[in-house]
């Protein structure tokens, strides 16, 4: 097995492993916000690893460029969708997105005084 083949295998293993870990995390963790923490790496780390494996195998051919394009699209849209989902979860929970009074009070501790 060549060094290139080993690199491809390692990147593929990393990408697939991250996604499977995140899927199991979504299943195991009960809280919605914690689930969203697992949704993040699957849309950023895994596409980069798999696109890197394609680049190692194909260099910057048509396939390589398209794989990078998919990784870029996933990297841009994934965090935006995760944020939108978290925002929707909070609005469903509290009726609005703004901070609650007790959350504001927790932020203005002596170690973190309010702005004057």
């Amino acid at each position, binding site marked *: 097995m060549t060094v290139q083949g080993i690199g*491809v295998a390692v990147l593929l293993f990393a990408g697939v492993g991250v996604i499977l870990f995140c899927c199991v995390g979504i*299943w195991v963790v009960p809280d919605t916000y914690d689930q969203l923490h697992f949704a993040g790496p699957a849309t950023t780390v895994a596409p980069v690893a798999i696109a890197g494996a394609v680049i190692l195998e194909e260099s910057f*051919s048509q396939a390589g460029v*398209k794989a990078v394009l998919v990784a870029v699209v996933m990297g841009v849209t994934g965090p935006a*969708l995760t944020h939108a*989902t978290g925002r929707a979860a909070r609005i469903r929970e509290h009726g609005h997105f703004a901070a609650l009074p007790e959350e504001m009070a927790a932020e203005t501790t002596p170690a973190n005084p309010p702005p004057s």
Partner: protein
Amino acid sequence: MNIWLIAATVLLLGLIPCGVVCFKGAPIQRLVALEMAGTLDVMVLLLLAQGFNQPPFYDLALVLALLSFAGGLVFVRFLERWV
């Protein structure tokens, strides 16, 4: 069967936890699982395109990535306002 197709097959196992959450979770948790399943499907299409050595198939992964984002935003807005 090359390493790409093996990786795609293994990756499909990730749909099981997503399906379980989609069946049993609260509505917003089902949406999170649906988004994760969309991400997983994009990666599977990417690996299949490389495994079958068909560069035009990469377009499927790209289109699914864009459409799952748009669909996810629609579901988010729907859950945020009405359900």
